[in-house]
């Protein structure tokens, strides 16, 4: 069973992680309802 996706919730933190891990960012703009 796979783990759930561990989402970042802060844009700048995601950018820092992406730069250090050299990975692209997948952004899900969603409607929290």
């Amino acid at each position, binding site marked *: *069973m*796979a*783990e*759930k*996706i*561990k*989402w*970042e*919730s802060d*844009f700048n933190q*995601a*950018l820092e*992680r*992406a*730069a250090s*891990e*050299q*990975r*692209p*960012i*997948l*952004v*899900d*703009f*969603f*409607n*929290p309802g």
Partner: protein
Amino acid sequence: MESVTFPKDEVVNFVMKNFVPLRLAHDTQPHATDFNVKWTPTIVILDSRGKEHHRIVGFMRGDEFIPFLILGMGKIHYDNGEYEVAINYFNQVLQDYPNSGSAPEAVFLRGVSSFKKTNETEPLKETYKLLTEKYPDSDWTKRAFPYSLL
């Protein structure tokens, strides 16, 4: 989005292995404005510096999501002029997900990447031929029509 796509183990594993996943409410500023978000879900692929390379607006079937992501990874390299690497990603879409909605764009961009790499027109002609054979109703086939005249 989650109820449709993300519960699939394969998708979760692929995202966690290859991306930094970021979830933002659609009205989060300044990002909603910066990325011109008008509807949900809007899924955007950014490079590691935050520049956009690929997006989809609206729901996507679970089996379409991984090819969408691989195409996006290829487009990051394509946009950066790294055509050989980009071609590898486009080939991966076509090998593993030839019937996906991302496949026609992968054929198109693979042909353009080959042209940009070699300056030979043959890959463009082959691209149009393949698109007409395999994806005759795709918009990408229409876009490739001029290559048939080369």
